[in-house]
C-alpha cells in the first residue's frame, strides 16, 4: 500500500478496483493456506466436461448424473473422511474449443480440486495442450477415452486414464478375430482421427490384416454416407466380419445402412460405439443388434449376480437424478467414475491435496478394489487404467452376454505397446461393504 500512495495520481476507476483488490485479495490467499483448492472442511469438488447436449449427447449425457448419483450415495453414508464429494458439470457439446473454455472455467473460476472423467480424445488433447493441468498440479483423473497417448506420466503427470486404451482393445480384438474367424473375410470401419489411428496401431501390433479398411471423418457419419461408401464397400467386397471401431452414432448409422443395403455380416462393435441402450435410442432395432459381438471390461449390465451391478442398480434407482437413468453401460461407467474418485480421495488420506491424490494413485492405485473385471495399470511410470477386455454377443434385449455364458467372463489383458495378449489370471477383489471403497 505504501508504494501505491507514492504515485502522483491514480486513474480513478482502475485505482478503485485495485485498492478494493488489496483488501479482497488477502482473503482467498489466507484460505488457501488452510485448505487445498476445491477442498473445504465439509466438501471436495471435482469438475467434469461432457456432452450434455448436441450430437454426442445420447448416452454420454448419462455419465455425469450417474457419477453424481453414486457420490450422493457416498455422501449420504458419511462422505469421504467426513467431506461430501461434488461434481460440477459443464456441457462441452463434444467440441474441443468448448471443452477448453469449460475446463478453464472449472479450474480458474470454480476452482475445482481436479478434473474428472473428461470425455473425448480430441477434446482432451486440446485441454491438455491449452490448459496443461500437469503444469498446474491439477489432478486430471480417469479420462474417459481410450487414446493411449494419455498414458504418459512424464508428459501429463497428473492425468490418469480409466478405459483400456484403444490400442489394447484392438490388440485383444485382433487375437479374438484370429481365434474365432480364421478363414473369414474381415473388414474395418474406423474413425479417421486419433481414435481410429490408435486402433489401427493396435491391430497392426496384433498382426491383423483387413481385407477392406474404410475410414470416416468424425462427425460425417450419416446413413447416406455409410450406405454410399463405407458399408457398401464392405458389401461389395463380400466381407464376412465387419469390425466397427467408431462412436455410437457412427455405429448406429452403419448398422442402419447395412440393413438398408440388405447386407448381412457378422458385426463386431468396439466398446466406444457398442452401448445397446444408446444404439436403441438412436433408432437401431434390437433385432439388428442381436448377434453382434461386443467387448467390455466391466461386468455385463444384465448380470444381476455381479455384486457391483446389483449394488449400482440399487444406487441408481435411488440417487440418479438424470433425465434418463435406464441402467446401461453409460450409467455403470458413470458410477465407476464416482467410485474411483472416492477411492482416489481415500488413498490420499484424511486431508487430500492435489499432489497427494496423484501420489496415492501412483503408489496404491493398482490395488484398489474396483468394479472392472480387469486389472488397473497405475504405477509411478504408468497412468494406464483398466487393461483388458472380454467378448460377448448382444441378445435380443440388447444385453451383452459373455461368449461362455452369463457371468462367465473370459478376460484378456495386454498393454499399449508390443506386449502379448494373454488370458487374464486377475481375480477381482471382493466388493467392499456397500460398494464404497475401503482402501
Amino acid at each position: 500500500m505504501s508504494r501505491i500512495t507514492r504515485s502522483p495520481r491514480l486513474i480513478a476507476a482502475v485505482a478503485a478496483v485495485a485498492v478494493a483488490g488489496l483488501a479482497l485479495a488477502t482473503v482467498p490467499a489466507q484460505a488457501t493456506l488452510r485448505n487445498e483448492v476445491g477442498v473445504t472442511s465439509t466438501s471436495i469438488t471435482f469438475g467434469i466436461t461432457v456432452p450434455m447436449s448436441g450430437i454426442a449427447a445420447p448416452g454420454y449425457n448419462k455419465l455425469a448424473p450417474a457419477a453424481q448419483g453414486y457420490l450422493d450415495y457416498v455422501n449420504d453414508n458419511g462422505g469421504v473422511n467426513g467431506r461430501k464429494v461434488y461434481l460440477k458439470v459443464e456441457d462441452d457439446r463434444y467440441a474441443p474449443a468448448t471443452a477448453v473454455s469449460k475446463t478453464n472455467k472449472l479450474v480458474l473460476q470454480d476452482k475445482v480440486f481436479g478434473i474428472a472423467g473428461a470425455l473425448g480424445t480430441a477434446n482432451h488433447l486440446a485441454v491438455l495442450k491449452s490448459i496443461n493441468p500437469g503444469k498446474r498440479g491439477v489432478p486430471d483423473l480417469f479420462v474417459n477415452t481410450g487414446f493411449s497417448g494419455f498414458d504418459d506420466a512424464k508428459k501429463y503427470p497428473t492425468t490418469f486414464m480409466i478405459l483400456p486404451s484403444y490400442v489394447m482393445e484392438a490388440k485383444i480384438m485382433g487375437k479374438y478375430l484370429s481365434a474365432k474367424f480364421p478363414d473369414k473375410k474381415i473388414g474395418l470401419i474406423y474413425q479417421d482421427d486419433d481414435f481410429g489411428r490408435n486402433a489401427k496401431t493396435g491391430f497392426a501390433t496384433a498382426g491383423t490384416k483387413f481385407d477392406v479398411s474404410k475410414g470416416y471423418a468424425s462427425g460425417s457419419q450419416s446413413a447416406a454416407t455409410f450406405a454410399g461408401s463405407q458399408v457398401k464397400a464392405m458389401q461389395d467386397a463380400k466381407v464376412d466380419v465387419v469390425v466397427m471401431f467408431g462412436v455410437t452414432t457412427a455405429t448406429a448409422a452403419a448398422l442402419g445402412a447395412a440393413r438398408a443395403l440388405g447386407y448381412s455380416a457378422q458385426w463386431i462393435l468396439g466398446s466406444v460405439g457398442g452401448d445397446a441402450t444408446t444404439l436403441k435410442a438412436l433408432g437401431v432395432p434390437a433385432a439388428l443388434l442381436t448377434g453382434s459381438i461386443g467387448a467390455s471390461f466391466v461386468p455385463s449390465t444384465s448380470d444381476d449376480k455381479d455384486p457391483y451391478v446389483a449394488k449400482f442398480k440399487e444406487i441408481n434407482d435411488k440417487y440418479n437424478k438424470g433425465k434418463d437413468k435406464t441402467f446401461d453401460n453409460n450409467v455403470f461407467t458413470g458410477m465407476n467414475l464416482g467410485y474411483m474418485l472416492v477411492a482416489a480421495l481415500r488413498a490420499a488420506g484424511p486431508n487430500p491435496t492435489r499432489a497427494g491424490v496423484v501420489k496415492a494413485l501412483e503408489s496404491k492405485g493398482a490395488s484398489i478394489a474396483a468394479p472392472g473385471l480387469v486389472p488397473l495399470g497405475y504405477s509411478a511410470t504408468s497412468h494406464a487404467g483398466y487393461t483388458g477386455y472380454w467378448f460377448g454377443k448382444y441378445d435380443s434385449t440388447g444385453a451383452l452376454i459373455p461368449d461362455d455364458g452369463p457371468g462367465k467372463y473370459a478376460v484378456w489383458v495386454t498393454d499399449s505397446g508390443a506386449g502379448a495378449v494373454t488370458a487374464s489370471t486377475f481375480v477381482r477383489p471382493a466388493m467392499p461393504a456397500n460398494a464404497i471403497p475401503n482402501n
Partner: protein
Amino acid sequence: MSNRITRRGAAILATSVLAFATTIAIPTAANAADPTCDTALGITACNGVGSDGAPYSFSAPANFGGTLYLWSHGYRYPVDLPAAIPVVGGYKVTSTPEPAPSTDVAKALLSTGFGIAGSGYSKQGWSPELAVKSQMEVVAAFKKKFPSTTKVIAWGASEGGYITQLLVDQNPGTFAAMAPLCTVSNDIGSSLFAATDVLWGMQTFFDPTIVGHGYAAGLAGYAQAMGDIGKIFTALGAIQAGVTVGTWPETAKASPLASNLIAAGIPARSALLMVGLIAGLPTQSAHFDGTTGPGDPTNPANQDYDKFALAISPALGVLENIASAAVLGVVVNYDLEQQMGGKILDNSTHDFVAQVGDAAGTYNMALSGDAAIAGMQGVMKLAPKWTADAAAVAKLNAAKKTSGKVVIPTVTMHSLNDPAVFAGNTQWLTDQYLATNSAKEMYATFITSGPEHYSQFTAAGLPDTSYPAPSSTNHCNFSSMQMLTVAWMANYGAQNGVLPDAEITQFLRETIPGFSPDDMLETPRLKIYG
C-alpha cells in the same frame, strides 16, 4: 465478409490501380522548431514538426504531476489503398500524430494529471528506427515545454509496441516503465513467417495467379500487390459463399495440385483451415468464435447445429482472419521488398506437418479427417516453395532487433486470438523475462479474450458480420478500461521501480472485463521458433 470484393470489384481494382498510386510528401526540416501551443480548459496542447518532418503533438494539464505517457502508434500503410478493398479501402497515407491510443484514454490521462505525447513519424510502413528518432525528439520537446517532467512511460501498440521496446533498448535511463501492447517482438521475421504461409497457401490452394512475393519495383509492383489483395478477397468470397457445401473458387481449378483435392471431395473450407493452421492463425476472429452454429442449439430439430459448429465454424474464423490480415500481409511484404530490394518471404524450410501439430486432432472434423489431412499435406509437400533473395534478407536482418530484456517495469497486453500479430510475440517477451529469473515484480502480462460465444447468423442461417466486433477480439481491440489498467500498472512501476504485488495484478486479471484470469496462461508460441 459482408462487404467482400466481388469479381467485378477485383477487375475494377486491378485496372484502376495506378490511379490510386500516390506517395505522400512530407516536408523535411533540418532542425525541429518549437511547437505551437494553445491552452484551453486547463489543458496545454502543442503541435510541432520534428527534424525529419514528422508531425507530433503533446498535451499536459494545468495540474501536470511530472509523468508523461509517450504513445507509439502502430503500422500504417505506406501506400494509398483502392476504395474497393473491404474495410480499409480508401485509406490515404497519413502522418497525423497520435499522442494516445484513443480520445477516451487521452481524456482520462489528462484529467488525472498526466501528460501525453506522440509522433506521426516521418515515414509510414515498417520504419521503426525512424520512429524511434521521431519519438525521442518528442520527449525532448515535451520536457523543454514542461521542465517539471520527471518520468516518461513508453507505450505503444503493434509496431508501436516494437518501437516502444527499441526506445527503451536504445535509450537507457530515459524511460521509467514501458507497455508494449499487442506487440511485435524480437523482429518482424516472426510475423513474416506466418504471412508467407498464408499468402503461399492462398496461391497454392486457391489461385495460382496470386503473385504473393517478388513484386516488381515501383508502381508496377504496387499494381501487383493490389491485384493480389483483390484475388485473395475474391477467393475468400467464393469460399464463404459456399462454406456449408465446401465450394472451391473457380480460380483453384487452374492449380493441378488443388484439382486433386477438389476431385477427392475435400471441401475448400478444410483447405482454408489448413492454411490458417500452418500459419498459426487463430480460429476465433472478429465476428466468429469458432464454436457456434446457426440457430438454437437447444432445439432438437436443429440437427445441423453441431455439424456446423465443429466442421464449419473454425474455418469461418480463419476465413475472416485471413481477410483482415491479407491486406496487411500483402502491403507489409510489398513495403519491405521495396525497402530491401528483393524477395524476403521464404518457406523453403517450413515443416507443415509439425506446424499443424496437435491442431490436426483438435480440428480433425473441420479438416475432414486424417485422409483429407494427408492429402492436403501431400499437396503442400509437392507445391513449389518460395525462396527469398539472400541480399534482401541480410539487409532486413541487419535492422535492429528488440533485445527482449526487461530492465524497467514492463506491462504487456495481447489478445489471445490476435489474427495480425500473434500473441506468441508477447509470449516470446514473457519467456525472455522468465528466463532471467528476476525476483522483482518487473513484468506483468494481461491476455484478453472475447466472449465464449459471439458468432451471429442471419435469419437465413448465414454468417453475419454486420455487428461490431466484441472488444478483446481481433488486433489491438482493447477496451478503454483495459488500456487504463495497463496505464495504471505502468505508472505504478514508473513511480516505484517495480510493478504492484502479484496479488494486485491477479486481482486485476480477475476483475477487468475481457482479461483472462489465468496467471499461468501460455499462448501458442510463434511457429518460427518451432
